[in-house]
């Protein structure tokens, strides 16, 4: 049964009735002519009448067939290919291969004989894999599938490959016919340390199909199709449809997703492009069985212990994506080489962790000593996906942080809040951790030059000159941290109209409490227990941070993206973080509360300031590492640090990488290419002086190896995609039978030509001499 590629032209079959109508009409219009004698005519027609009638019928039939076959040819019929079909049409094939690091997981199907289980505790040991080898991995399976797809290509076909790990890469920008080249690229495509962006990869190949004129167009997506991929996909579709799709991963989501897809002719995916509707989409799951996995999600240094006799402590957070509790997970911290120092074989610290199923657990690793290289690798025993069992950490001694206190007092030297702050940050005045400078809020010099600080504290400031507000806003936008402590001098209107718009999405609503009534007070509780500021605080998540009593505070309304870190009793926001700014809504002058004289004041101030300082500097100190593979490393250095020399990055393999240089606001910004692998990167001056050390880790969202429900993904495409499960019908048969064979229109046009010649020859008697 042929398929019609331009079925609208089938309506032209109606025109096949025209010759019949013309024939009938012309017969009706025959006129009478009086002739002397029809003796001869009768004699001739008697002999020929039957032949004449047959001839007329034959001519009529030929004309009807000419019109009908022409209409059929215009409708472009094509026969599906399969066994025994005549010929085949050419094809354009695009293969999107997921080479994100989740594909490095052990393939349970491939390792079935090695004792892997699809459920239960991660089969460590038996399926412990060499992270550097693809053998037995889901990626190896995926590559095999990709090769199988390529093997279905024939002469005249064209193929293109897209590697879906970010940044998406197309080895060939246009489809090629050389199968060996395609195979070669598939063979050597490495697993990347980044996440997959399947919608982006599909968008990149959409243009190939739009430009193609082949009969068959096929898109193959080979991936482990994680649930997180589906979540991101659906979130993107929901965003494109204006949030109309309240999507979830159940079957009901298909309707919402399809609704989002109504906007375009083909399947609507992420990004700007769409796949044309004549493209057949095949989804090939490289892994169908679930795989248990754990990953190191975060490593941070407890800065309170740094430099003390107690030693540095690492707080390691482990995520358990399996359905079984992991007990006594051994975590080790080893020194990581930076090219100049060797990797240490002996652990600098160890700990044990218990991690609940589908949960997270922290382990505290006490370092016996800081690594000489400044870099650490924290790891636990390999499991099905070894790549995320290691995390890198830069453990440099935290440098002296420059803190500028902008005091709202006319005489900061005598202002109680200012004094309390200075004492908390630099009690001995030795600038051991913080170099504290104080300025008056009204000082016009603040608006003249960029502040030389890592953190600015706005301490009970009422108003600020416009130029100062601009400077501080710029400072924050450039990565500096701002700590705003409100107080008695706070002018709500000034904050709402000029200060907060530059710093944070917050609004001062009013005042709460009365210092004259000490019997009515609020307590301070943690609201975001996981926030690094509260690391080591003895209070439980719902408990009070301090025994201090708070009599008065400002009622500040957080914006949409602001985060309440701590709150007063009654859920009144106390500590709010937004865009590199942290706001404390009560004062530290000892009047509104006795916080400044409580035991929690010093560590709280230290943590907040160090946290903000770490945001601005980019170095992984205290606040934990934030660089993930696939992103670029960027660092600002003072021009005098460069000493007029070039600088470059060195990746974990010891390879030099260029540094893109730009200058902004008196600093030199050095930016690397996107980091392709996890590990320790260095920023080095041409003469070898190290300017910075960076830890790049995996984005552990990719470590969640749950597979998306099979029934949802096909509905993301319009028309719906086909899921090809290897091992059942096999890819070959499904694909080949789905292809169109030869188009029939040339044959039909040849028939039309033949019919026209026959009609002309048979009807030649119609031409008068």
């Amino acid at each position, binding site marked *: 049964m042929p398929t019609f590629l331009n079925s609208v032209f089938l309506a032209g079959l109606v025109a096949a009735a025209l010759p019949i109508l013309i024939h009938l009409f012309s017969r009706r219009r025959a006129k009478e002519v*009086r002739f002397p004698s029809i*003796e*001869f*005519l009768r*004699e001739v027609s008697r002999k020929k009448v039957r032949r004449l009638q047959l001839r007329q019928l034959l001519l009529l039939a030929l004309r009807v067939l000419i019109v009908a076959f022409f209409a059929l040819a215009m409708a472009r019929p094509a026969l599906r290919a399969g066994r025994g079909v005549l010929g085949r049409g050419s094809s354009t094939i695009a293969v999107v291969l997921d080479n994100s690091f989740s594909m490095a997981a052990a393939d349970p199907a491939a390792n079935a004989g090695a004792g892997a289980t699809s459920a239960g505790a991660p089969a460590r040991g038996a399926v412990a894999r060499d992270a550097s080898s693809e053998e037995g991995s889901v990626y190896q399976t995926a590559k095999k599938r990709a090769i199988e797809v390529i093997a279905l290509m024939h002469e005249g076909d064209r193929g293109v490959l897209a590697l879906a790990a970010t940044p998406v890469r197309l080895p060939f920008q246009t489809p090629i016919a050389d199968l060996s080249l395609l195979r070669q690229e598939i063979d050597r495509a490495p697993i990347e340390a980044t996440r997959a962006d399947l919608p982006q990869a599909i968008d990149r190949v959409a243009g190939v199909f739009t430009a193609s004129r082949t009969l068959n167009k096929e898109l193959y997506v080979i991936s482990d199709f994680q649930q997180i991929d589906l979540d991101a996909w659906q979130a993107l579709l929901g965003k494109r449809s204006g949030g109309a799709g309240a999507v979830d991963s159940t079957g009901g989501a298909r309707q919402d997703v399809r609704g989002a897809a109504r906007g375009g002719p083909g399947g609507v995916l992420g990004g700007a492009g769409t796949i044309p509707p004549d493209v057949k989409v095949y989804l090939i799951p490289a892994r169908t069985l679930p795989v248990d996995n754990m990953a190191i999600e975060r490593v941070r240094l407890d800065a309170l212990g740094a430099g003390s006799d107690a030693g540095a402590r690492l707080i390691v957070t482990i995520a358990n994506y399996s359905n079984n509790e992991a007990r006594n997970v051994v975590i080790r911290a080893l020194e990581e080489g930076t090219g100049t120092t060797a990797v240490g074989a002996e652990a600098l610290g160890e700990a044990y962790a218990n991690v609940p199923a589908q949960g997270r657990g922290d382990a505290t690793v006490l370092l016996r000593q800081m690594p000489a290289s400044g870099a650490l690798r924290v790891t636990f025993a390999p499991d099905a996906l070894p790549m995320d069992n290691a995390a890198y950490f830069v453990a440099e001694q935290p440098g002296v942080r420059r803190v500028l206190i902008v005091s709202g007092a006319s005489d900061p030297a005598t202002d109680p809040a200012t004094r309390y702050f200075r004492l908390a940050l630099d009690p001995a005045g030795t600038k051991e951790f913080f170099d504290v400078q104080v300025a008056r809020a009204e000082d016009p010099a603040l608006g003249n030059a960029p502040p030389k600080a890592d953190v600015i504290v706005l301490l009970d400031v009422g108003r600020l000159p416009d130029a100062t507000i601009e400077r501080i806003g710029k400072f924050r936008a450039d990565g500096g941290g701002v700590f705003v402590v409100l107080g008695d001098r706070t002018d709500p209107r000034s904050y709402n109209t000029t200060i907060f718009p530059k710093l944070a999405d917050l609004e001062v609503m009013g005042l709460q409490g009365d210092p004259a009534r000490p019997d009515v007070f609020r307590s301070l509780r943690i609201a975001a227990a996981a926030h690094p500021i509260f690391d080591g605080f003895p209070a439980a998540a719902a408990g009070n941070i301090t025994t201090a009593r708070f009599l008065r505070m400002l009622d500040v309304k957080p914006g949409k993206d602001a985060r309440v870190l701590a709150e007063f009793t009654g859920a009144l926001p106390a500590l709010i973080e937004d865009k590199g700014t942290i706001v404390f809504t009560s004062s530290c002058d000892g009047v509104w509360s006795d916080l400044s004289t409580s035991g929690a004041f010093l560590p709280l101030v230290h943590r907040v300031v160090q946290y903000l300082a770490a945001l601005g500097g980019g170095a992984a100190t205290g606040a934990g590492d934030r660089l993930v593979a696939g992103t670029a490393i960027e660092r600002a250095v003072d021009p005098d640090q460069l000493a007029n020399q070039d600088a470059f990055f060195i990746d974990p393999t010891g390879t030099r990488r260029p540094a893109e240089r730009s200058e902004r606001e008196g600093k030199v910004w050095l930016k690397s290419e996107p980091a392709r692998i996890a590990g320790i990167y260095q920023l080095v001056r041409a003469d070898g002086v190290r300017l910075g050390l960076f830890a790049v880790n995996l984005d552990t969202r990719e470590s969640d190896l749950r597979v998306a429900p099979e029934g949802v993904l096909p509905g993301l495409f319009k028309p719906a995609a086909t899921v090809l499960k290897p091992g059942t019908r096999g890819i070959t048969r499904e694909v080949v039978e789905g292809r169109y064979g030869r188009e029939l229109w040339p044959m039909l046009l040849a028939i039309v030509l033949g019919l026209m010649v026959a009609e002309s020859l048979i009807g030649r008697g119609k031409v008068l001499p």
Partner: protein
Amino acid sequence: MPHRPDQSYRILLEPSFLSKLQGLDMIARMIVEGFLTGLHKSPYHGFSVEFAEHRQYMPGDPIRHVDWKVYAKSDRFYIKEYEQETNLRSYLMLDVSSSIPFTGEEGRIEKIRYGTWLAAALAYLMLQQQDAVGLLLFSDRIHKVIPARSARSHLRILFGAMEVALREALEAASQKGDQLRRTDMGPCLEALADRTPRRGLMILISDLWDSNPARVMRALKHFRHLEHEVVVLHLQDPREDRFDYRDETIFVDMETGEKLSLQPWEVRKDYKRLMAERIAYYKKECGENRIEYERILTDTPFDAALLRYLEKRSRLH
């Protein structure tokens, strides 16, 4: 520049010109004068009609028969020949069947009209030659017989009968009514042959749409058997000859009323073959029996027919 002989007289022989004239006598006279003028001016050497009226004076001839006009011109004595001296009887046998009013093109004269004018011109010429002229009007029966006479006044009788026949034929054709006349000339001609024992000149003017050509030839042979000279003037409209109809047509037989729907281009070739065979048959049969056969298309001038008459007449003397 070489002198071209004046051809203006030829218009008198053109059917298209003559169709503008009224009256059979006028038409007949025009045809004859045009013909005779052409005879005199043409290099054709044969005979002069005038000579047929005189012979040279022989001693003993009556003086009253001397043609003094000729004497005045030629200074010679000639004796006029009179009717009884020529003794030539001619019959004009005119087909008035229903097929004869056919014309294949608007503006072209009908076969019946052409045939009637031709007959009228022949009658005029014959009587001018002092031959006796008779008339037979027939279709599938004899409509009228006018015995041969040589008086000039006989011409009026002949013309009258021809005009009536012409009018009736045209009326019958226009009415398309029940008065259909088939062609069955064999019995009609044989009946005339029985009535004309003396040798004479029989001129048949017909479209020969007789379904029994053999019987026609038998009748004509019968005339030959009686030592008549026979001329067959086969009238045809050019459309009958070419059969160049382009559209699907319902042909209506003018003699029987029978209808036949055809695509003419399908049968043209066979029709023309059959027509050619019929003509060839008549030519052959006439040739073998020393019957003059002339096929005349109705868009051609009249002189060919008149020449045939004169040729035949000269053989009879």
